[in-house]
C-alpha cells in the first residue's frame, strides 16, 4: 500500500457512490429502537420499485441524538429525520425525491447541533463503519502515512505535546508526556493499549466512537505505536459491547488486508499488529493496572503504582494506555497541526470532549463540545432542560468517581480544573441530569451500590468500606440513622479516599461527599428522632 493506492481507493469510492443516499444510524442505540427493521423495509421497498442501484441505503455510525432514534439522514439534501418507524420507509423515499414527507425532522439549527464542534465525531453519521473504503474516502490513513514517511517519532510526540491533548479517560494526564515517557522507557518490547472498557453508568461515548468510526481509533493507535516504538497493540473492549467488538474485528481485518496494519506498513519498516481482548464484565478492569492484569490472563485487579505502566506495564514492558477518545483525537491533530488544536478549548484543557447527556433531559444523546463551554449551555441550551419543565437540580459528571454539581454552579466551565474545583471530575464523559424530584441521598446510594458490586475485593477500605457506606446510606434512607452516623459516613469517606489502593476505591466516596457538600439538608432531613441510641 502506498499513498497513490490510498488515493485511488478514495476516488473509486466517491465515483461509485450513488447521488441519492439514505443513511441510517446503525449504532446500538438506534438498532435498539428499530433501525435494522427500517433498513430492511427501505431495501425491499426500493427493490420493488427497481431503484436499488439508483438509491443507496447505507448504514452509518451514530448521529448523536440517541434519544430520538432511529435517526435517518438523506443525501444530497442533508435532511435528518427522527423517530423513523419502519412504516415511514415510503415517506423517506418520497422526501429523497423532493416530495412532501410527514416524518418528524431533526431541527439541525437547534443548539444541540449548532453548539457542537466535531473533531472526534467528524465522520460519525457520514461513513459506514463496516467499510474501510468509506474511511479512506474521507481522508483516512493519510495521517498515518504522513507520520511514517515525514515525521520522526520524536516529532510526533512533540506535536501531541504541543496540541495540549490530555487523557480523555477521566484523569486528564497530558497525553504527550505519557507518550514521551513510554518512548524513553527502556524495554525490549513496548505495547500500546486502547482502553475501551467504558463502564460508568450513563456513559457511552467510547462505544459510539468504536461503532461509528473504528478505523479512526486504529489509525490513532498506529500513530501512537510509531511514536513510542511499539509493534503490538491491544484493544481492551468490554464484553457488553458486541457490536463494537464486531466492527473492530472487521476493521482490523480490513486494515490488515490493505497493509495498513501488520508488517511493513506503507512499505516502511514500521510494523504494528492490533488484537482485541474482550473484558468479562468487571468495571475495575478500566483501571489501567487491572486491565493489564486481565490482558495477561490474570485476575483483573489493580496493583499499587508506581511503577506506572509507562515504565512497567504489560508483561513488565513499557506500555502506553490511552482511552478510545484520546486515540480518536490523534489524526485530527496530525492533519491540522497542534497549533490548530491548541486554539480550541481553555488554557489548560484543549480540544473537545464528548459527553453522553442522559437523565432528566429533553435531548438525550452524545454531544461533542469545545472545552470551556459552561454546564448551563450544555444542560439548558443543548439539552433543552427537563422533558416536563421541572427545574434542573444538579448534574452528575464522572460516574461513580465523580460528583453532583448543583444548578447554582451551572456557569462552571467544563474543563478538568474547573470541574475538580467544584468537587466533581471531568471523568470519561457521563453527564446525568437530575431534576427537583431526584433525592440526592438516593443518588449517592445508587453509586455506592455500583461501587460495592464492582469493588475487586483486594484492598480492605474499598472492599468493606463500600458495603458499610452503602448500608449506612440505606439506613439513612429508611430514616433509621442516628445523627452521629453522618460524621461516621464522612469519616469512612475520608478513609476510602486516602487509603484505597486504586482509583475506584479512592474516588468511590465522591458522589457521597459532593451531595453531602451541596445537599446536606437532604441528608439531615432523613435523620429521624428514632436513632439507634434514641433512648
Amino acid at each position, binding site marked *: 500500500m502506498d499513498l497513490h493506492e490510498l488515493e485511488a481507493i478514495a476516488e473509486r469510492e466517491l465515483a461509485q457512490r450513488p447521488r441519492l443516499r439514505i443513511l441510517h444510524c446503525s449504532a446500538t442505540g438506534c438498532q435498539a429502537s428499530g433501525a435494522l427493521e427500517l433498513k430492511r423495509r427501505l431495501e425491499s421497498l426500493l427493490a420493488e420499485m427497481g431503484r436499488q442501484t439508483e438509491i443507496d441505503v447505507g448504514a452509518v455510525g451514530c448521529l448523536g441524538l440517541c434519544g430520538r432514534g432511529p435517526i435517518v439522514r438523506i443525501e444530497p439534501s442533508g435532511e435528518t429525520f427522527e423517530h423513523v418507524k419502519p412504516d415511514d420507509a415510503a415517506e423517506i423515499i418520497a422526501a429523497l425525491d423532493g416530495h412532501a414527507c410527514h416524518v418528524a425532522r431533526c431541527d439541525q439549527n437547534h443548539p444541540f447541533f449548532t453548539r457542537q464542534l466535531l473533531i472526534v465525531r467528524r465522520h460519525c453519521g457520514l461513513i459506514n463503519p463496516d467499510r474501510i473504503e468509506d474511511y479512506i474516502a474521507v481522508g483516512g490513513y493519510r495521517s498515518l502515512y504522513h507520520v511514517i514517511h515525514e515525521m520522526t517519532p520524536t516529532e510526533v510526540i512533540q506535536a501531541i505535546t504541543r496540541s495540549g491533548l490530555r487523557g480523555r479517560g477521566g484523569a486528564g494526564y497530558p497525553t504527550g508526556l505519557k507518550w514521551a515517557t513510554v518512548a524513553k522507557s527502556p524495554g525490549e518490547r513496548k505495547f500500546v493499549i486502547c482502553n475501551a472498557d467504558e463502564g460508568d453508568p450513563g456513559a457511552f461515548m467510547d462505544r459510539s466512537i468504536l461503532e461509528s468510526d473504528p478505523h479512526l481509533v486504529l489509525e490513532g493507535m498506529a500513530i501512537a505505536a510509531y511514536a513510542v516504538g511499539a509493534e503490538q497493540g491491544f484493544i481492551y473492549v468490554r464484553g457488553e459491547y458486541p457490536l463494537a467488538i464486531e466492527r473492530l474485528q472487521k476493521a482490523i481485518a480490513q486494515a490488515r488486508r490493505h497493509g495498513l496494519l501488520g508488517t511493513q506498513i506503507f512499505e516502511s519498516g514500521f510494523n504494528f499488529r492490533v488484537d482485541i481482548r474482550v473484558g468479562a464484565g*468487571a468495571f*475495575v478492569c478500566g483501571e489501567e493496572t487491572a486491565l493489564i492484569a486481565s490482558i495477561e490472563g490474570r*485476575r483483573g485487579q489493580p*496493583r*499499587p503504582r508506581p511503577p506506572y505502566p509507562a515504565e512497567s506495564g504489560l508483561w513488565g514492558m513499557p506500555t502506553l494506555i490511552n482511552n478510545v477518545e484520546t486515540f480518536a483525537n490523534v489524526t485530527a491533530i496530525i492533519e491540522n497541526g497542534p497549533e490548530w488544536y491548541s486554539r480550541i478549548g481553555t488554557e489548560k484543557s484543549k480540544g473537545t470532549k464528548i459527553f453522553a447527556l442522559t437523565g432528566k433531559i429533553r435531548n438525550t444523546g452524545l454531544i461533542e463540545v469545545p472545552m470551556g463551554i459552561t454546564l448551563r449551555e450544555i444542560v439548558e441550551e443543548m439539552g433543552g432542560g427537563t422533558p416536563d419543565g421541572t427545574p434542573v437540580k444538579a448534574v452528575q459528571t464522572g460516574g461513580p468517581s465523580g460528583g453532583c454539581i448543583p444548578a447554582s454552579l451551572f456557569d462552571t466551565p467544563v474543563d478538568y480544573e474547573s470541574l475538580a474545583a467544584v468537587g466533581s471530575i471531568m471523568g470519561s464523559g457521563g453527564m446525568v441530569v437530575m431534576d427537583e424530584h431526584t433525592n440526592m441521598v438516593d443518588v449517592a446510594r445508587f453509586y455506592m451500590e455500583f461501587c*460495592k*458490586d*464492582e*469493588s*475487586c*475485593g*483486594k*484492598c*480492605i*477500605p474499598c*472492599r*468493606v*468500606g*463500600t*458495603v*458499610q457506606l452503602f*448500608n449506612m446510606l440505606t439506613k439513612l434512607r429508611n430514616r433509621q440513622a442516628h445523627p452521629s452516623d453522618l460524621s*461516621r459516613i464522612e*469519616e*469512612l469517606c475520608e*478513609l476510602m479516599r*486516602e*487509603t*484505597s*489502593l486504586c482509583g475506584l476505591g479512592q474516588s468511590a466516596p465522591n458522589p457521597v461527599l459532593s451531595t453531602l457538600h451541596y445537599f446536606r439538608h437532604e441528608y439531615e432531613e432523613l435523620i429521624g428522632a428514632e436513632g439507634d441510641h434514641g433512648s
Partner: protein
Amino acid sequence: MAAKTLTIDGHLVSARPGETLLAAIREAGITVPTLCHLDGLSDVGACRLCLVEIEGQRRLQPACMTMVSEGMVVHTNTPRLQSYRRQIIELLFAERNHVCAVCVASGHCELQRLAGMVGMDHVRYEYLSPNCPVDISHPRFGIDHNRCVLCTRCVRACDEIEGVHTWDVAGRGVNAHVITDLNQPWGASTTCTSCGKCQLACPTGAIFPRGVTVGERPHASERIALIVEARKQRW
C-alpha cells in the same frame, strides 16, 4: 550503587538500594502494622495497614511496596495514620465472623494482635455477619472462611514457594473468597500437595490443621521466610 539515607520518624536511617521502605523501617526498630505482607512472599499492598506519609507525595504509600530513595522523609505513625489503621481493623472485624473465643488461632492470631496494636477496642460499624462455609474435605487441613481476611498469603505461598497455585481468589468485593483449584472442595483438589504452606502463611485461624481446638493452632508464619532462605543458601 550507594546506600540511601532517609529520615524515618525524625531518625536518620541508612538503607540498601532496592530495599523496601518497610524493611528500612523495621531495621530502624520501628513497628508498623502489616497483615498481607509476609517475609519470603511477594508483596501486594492490599491491606493498607503499612501506609506511611512521605513528604512531597500527595498520596499515602504502602511501605511494603515502596522502594527507599535518597533523602526520603517518612512519617510512620501520625495521628491520621493511627486513625486509618484503627478503622481498617474495625472494617475487617465487621466483615466476617471473627469470634476469637472459639477460634483455633486465639492467642496466636495476627488480626487479634493487630486490634491491640492499633487500639481497636470495639467496632463502630455494623457487623455484616455473612454466612460463610467451612471446608473440611481435605484429610489434613480445613478452611473456615468466617476467619479469612483475604490477605492472599496462602495464594502466594502456594504459588511462589510450593509452585502449585492450588489457591486463588474468586468473586468480587465482599463476595471475594479464596478457592482451591477451580472452586472445588479442597479435598477434591488434584493439584494440592498437602504441603501445609498455606496453613503456615495464614495470619488468622482461617486455614488450620484438622483436629486442633481453641487456641491450639500455633503461629508459624516465619517458617515461610525460613524455607525461602534455606533454598537460597542451599542449606
